[in-house]
């Protein structure tokens, strides 16, 4: 029986992702590294502040992992939560695991600890750049119920590679944030189909924003992680110039599109309206026939 990534907790994802019994947690829940700030807001704390970090093996190879728990405070970056991720990435620079996996499940910055969360996101991005320059792949896995929003979306954009499932939405401003600030005419956050095709895994994969599309199972994410670790792009001027060209080209080609289906049609998808219903296997087949979706410009 396969475990749904979307439904699983952060701990379940980590335990099932790595080789059996191989996960070793750093600063685990028994150390009670909890938020010093949430009690001021009369909010409950979590023993792990909503993130699990540690070391495990993937097909025998040592990897570091961080997994956000999207059900606790929306997986948002608080002071402790962010510091655990930053510490893991800093440790990886000197301990040189074969890769670091970030299991995103976050709404972005935890507003009750906003300045700490925001700064931790900046520290995280710098640490990822350091790791990538040292040749250690940082692979993001996105498929949790909180998605990957706000600063989480920027961290995802800093990773070497990204795997995403149908439910794994990636964006900076979330649907509710856009609707609150700009109105329902700009973005109707209750239109789930619109949310999915604007920010969801299939659109991100088709547009080149993610490198693998996964079924919503731990097995699929494990297979994706193993594949992506082996083909991480360098972090250098050539890569970033290629990314500059790739993103400029995207805006030039699709900048006048109102909806993702128009982009998919221009990419050469014959039946854009049928994309959301495609199985992962059929979707992979579709992607394989399109140019520009698989690249090293990240």
């Amino acid at each position, binding site marked *: 029986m396969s475990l749904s990534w979307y439904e699983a*907790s952060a*701990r379940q994802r980590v335990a099932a992702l790595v080789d059996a019994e191989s996960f070793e947690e750093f600063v685990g*829940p*028994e150390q*009670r590294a909890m938020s010093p700030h949430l*009690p001021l807001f*009369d*909010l*409950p*704390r*979590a*023993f*792990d502040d909503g993130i699990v970090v540690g070391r495990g093996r993937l097909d025998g190879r040592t990897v570091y992992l961080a997994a956000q*728990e999207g*059900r*606790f405070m929306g997986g948002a970056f608080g002071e402790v939560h962010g510091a655990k991720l930053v510490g893991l990435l800093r440790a990886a620079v000197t301990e040189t695991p074969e890769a670091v996996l970030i299991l995103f499940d976050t709404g972005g910055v935890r507003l009750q600890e906003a300045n700490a969360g925001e700064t931790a996101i900046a520290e995280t991005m710098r640490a990822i750049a350091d790791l990538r320059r040292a040749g250690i792949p940082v692979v993001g896995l996105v498929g949790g119920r909180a998605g990957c929003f706000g600063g989480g979306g920027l961290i995802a954009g800093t990773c070497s590679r990204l795997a995403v499932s149908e439910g794994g939405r990636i964006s900076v401003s979330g649907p509710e944030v856009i609707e609150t600030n700009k109105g329902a005419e700009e973005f109707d956050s209750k239109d789930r189909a619109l949310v999915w095709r604007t920010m969801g895994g299939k659109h991100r994969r088709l547009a080149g924003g993610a490198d693998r599309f996964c079924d919503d199972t731990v097995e699929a994410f494990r297979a994706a992680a193993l594949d992506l670790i082996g083909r991480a792009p360098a972090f250098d001027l050539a890569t970033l110039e290629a990314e500059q060209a790739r993103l400029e080209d995207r805006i030039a080609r699709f900048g006048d599109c109102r909806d993702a289906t128009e982009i998919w049609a221009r990419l050469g998808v014959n039946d854009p309206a049928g994309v959301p219903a495609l199985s992962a296997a059929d979707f992979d087949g579709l992607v394989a026939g399109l140019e520009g979706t698989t690249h090293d410009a990240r």
Partner: protein
Amino acid sequence: METMTFRHTTKGPLAGTKPQAITGVVASGNLEVLLERVLPPDQCTIEIATPVVGYGDVWEAVAADFVARAQPGGLRIAINDGGARPDTVSLRLLQGARLMETGR
């Protein structure tokens, strides 16, 4: 926030050797339970932190019922509550005790 601690004596230790376990998630209507095998074999403590104030007698009854059923001797149990109903609390406590006994 309200915190409380209940101390119980049990007939003996909980079976198994697992040193610690955690189950559940702090979310609306849910809770997490951290269990550590760190106390004398006939002792059990249950610490609770909850944002819902004024239900100490309910917690006390749920904790006593759990201790009577599971006999979780040796365990220090800590709960971070997100506003769970008593039946959810009982379920999570029993899940946690089973994890400590069997590892699954």
